[in-house]
């Protein structure tokens, strides 16, 4: 498949911060989500791709063309800023038509193209309005229209859902998916892993200026290489352990002396174990005699969550367990209830990195 965007060994010093050896390959029509905390360098990377900054070393290829030293105007990238950067001194029409006026298009051509893109993004009724009166969702669409009208080879989105009301996020997410389906290659930076899960065909996790893991979202989130990446996939159960092999069977012993039975495999002397919150089951009574990883504990906290309810259980170690609201109702537990926890050996995953 044709590579649309390729970053090769990009390094850039920005004050005390440094982007280090960034390598990315995004195929044509790919949707790449770059996950990272604020200050991790993800927005800087977008500015490097757009040409607003030049890398200290490394190369940027767009559509098989080395654009590292090309002017911003010649790169065929479109950048949508987090707060949209809509020009306040122009109407919506003035904003969307800006790039066409820069390239000296004829007025009737400009009008046709603006009306077409505004129709596609459902903002045709806003063309004569001034930005100051628009909602966050409307501004987002204006910013997208203003960028898409340039027919960019790569669409760069800086936290596109961060400044939009929760009620509008689904609309924008659907819109981004539609754009991607039409074949537009998208690079989307965010701090929210749920955006990556719902949109990305490929995800990269950036931390302290380096991409520490990349790949298909399922692979990255089910096999995180470090505690940092695991945290991004919503995992909260981390345990530092010693790995103990006896008669070909492996178990891990936590610092609080809780033992986890593991699947067969090869393990180092010590490391980190993660268990997804939705892989742990809660029971009112001890499940059955053959239960392998079973622990008695006391409920310490119950918090409503996206999934349903997050139950915190103290069972020697602290476990965070996600259950649905129906399960919660059926269990009838409250804080200080005694419960049993269980999970299969495959749910306890040893991290490859040091964590």
């Amino acid at each position, binding site marked *: 498949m044709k590579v649309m965007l390729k970053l090769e060994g990009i390094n850039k010093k920005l004050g005390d911060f440094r982007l280090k050896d960034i390598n990315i390959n995004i195929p044509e029509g790919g949707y790449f989500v770059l996950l990272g905390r604020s200050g991790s360098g993800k927005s800087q990377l977008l*500015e490097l791709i*757009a040409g607003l900054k030049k890398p200290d070393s490394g190369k940027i290829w767009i559509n098989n063309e080395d654009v590292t030293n090309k002017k911003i*105007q010649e790169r065929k990238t479109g950048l949508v800023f987090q707060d949209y950067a809509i020009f306040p001194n*122009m109407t919506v029409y*003035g904003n969307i038509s800006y*790039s*066409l*006026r*820069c390239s000296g298009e004829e007025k009737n051509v400009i009008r046709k193209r603006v009306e077409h893109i505004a129709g596609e993004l459902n903002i045709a009724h806003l063309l004569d309005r001034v930005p100051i009166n628009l909602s966050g969702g409307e501004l987002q669409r204006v910013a997208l229209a203003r960028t898409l009208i340039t027919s960019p080879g790569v669409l760069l989105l800086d936290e596109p859902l961060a400044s939009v009301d929760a009620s509008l996020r689904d609309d924008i997410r659907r819109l981004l998916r539609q754009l991607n389906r039409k074949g537009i290659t998208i690079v989307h930076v965010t701090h929210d892993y749920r955006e990556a899960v719902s949109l990305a065909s490929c995800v990269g996790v950036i931390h302290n200026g380096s991409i520490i893991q990349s790949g298909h979202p399922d692979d990255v989130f089910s096999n995180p290489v470090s505690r940092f990446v695991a945290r991004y996939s919503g995992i909260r159960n981390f345990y530092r352990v010693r790995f103990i092999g006896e008669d070909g069977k492996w178990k891990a012993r936590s610092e609080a002396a809780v033992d986890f039975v593991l699947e067969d495999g090869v393990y180092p002397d010590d490391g980190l174990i993660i268990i997804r919150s939705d892989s742990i089951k809660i029971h009112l009574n001890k499940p059955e005699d053959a239960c392998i990883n079973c622990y008695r504990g006391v409920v310490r906290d119950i918090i409503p969550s996206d999934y349903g309810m997050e139950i915190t259980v103290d069972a020697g170690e602290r476990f965070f367990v996600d259950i649905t609201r129906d399960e919660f109702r059926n269990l009838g537990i409250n804080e200080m209830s005694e419960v049993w926890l269980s999970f299969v050996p495959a749910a306890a995953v040893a991290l490859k990195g040091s964590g």
Partner: protein
Amino acid sequence: MIRQTPFSLLMLFLSSLVLLFILAPLTGMFLHTAGSDLLETVNDDDVRQSIWLTLWVSFAATFVFAFVCIPLAWIMARKEFPLKSMVQGLIDLPVVLPHTAAGLAVLGFISREGVLGKAADTIGLTLVNNPAGIALAMAFVSVPFLINSARDGFAAVPERLEKAALTLGASPSRVFFTISLPIAWRSIITGFIMMFARGMSEFGAVVMVAYHPMIAPVLIYERFSSFGLAYARPVSVLFVLVALMIFIFLRLISVTRKEVRYEGNAEA
């Protein structure tokens, strides 16, 4: 209604004092000027000519210097370079100089022995005692007002707007004229009005380079020193009235300009 605390009452009292301090002398001047004296002054050719001279020379100085002050303001707002704080100090220097000293400096520069004076002399122009010399003296003491106000205006333009324009294919000059300048416009207009006002009220620097032709502040001083307070007062009142009318007019224009700005952009 906000409840008045002893502290806010004290602040209100002190604020009233300073407002009274500004208002009282001006009110006194107006109250002591008879309508007949004012009418006579309006019909005085010397007065009319000097007020007109003051206005157009100050406006011309502001207009011409805007072409160099605005680029400097943009550089001060957007660029980092060695000795930038020294350049800022240099810009502010005319504000802290005694104006007669500033006038002497300008006189040295524009007299026949000075660099600019010599250059002007080669095309047959004498800057001393000439409106051009007056304009330079006015500009010397008033440029900081335009530069600093415009600089604040450019600094307040979010850089990401300029970056967004660049990514949309605009050249740096187009970004300046379509984004930075229109958004900073209000501060530039405010600076323009302040420079114009400061220029037309200048006495010390102007009197050193041109006693004649007489601008209004020099004429007021001349009337006062030759004939006394009663003769100088109607000229002052007239000048203050004209200045007030012009400032109100310019303020109204600058507000209207802001509103036009939004609509004027559906240009394509």
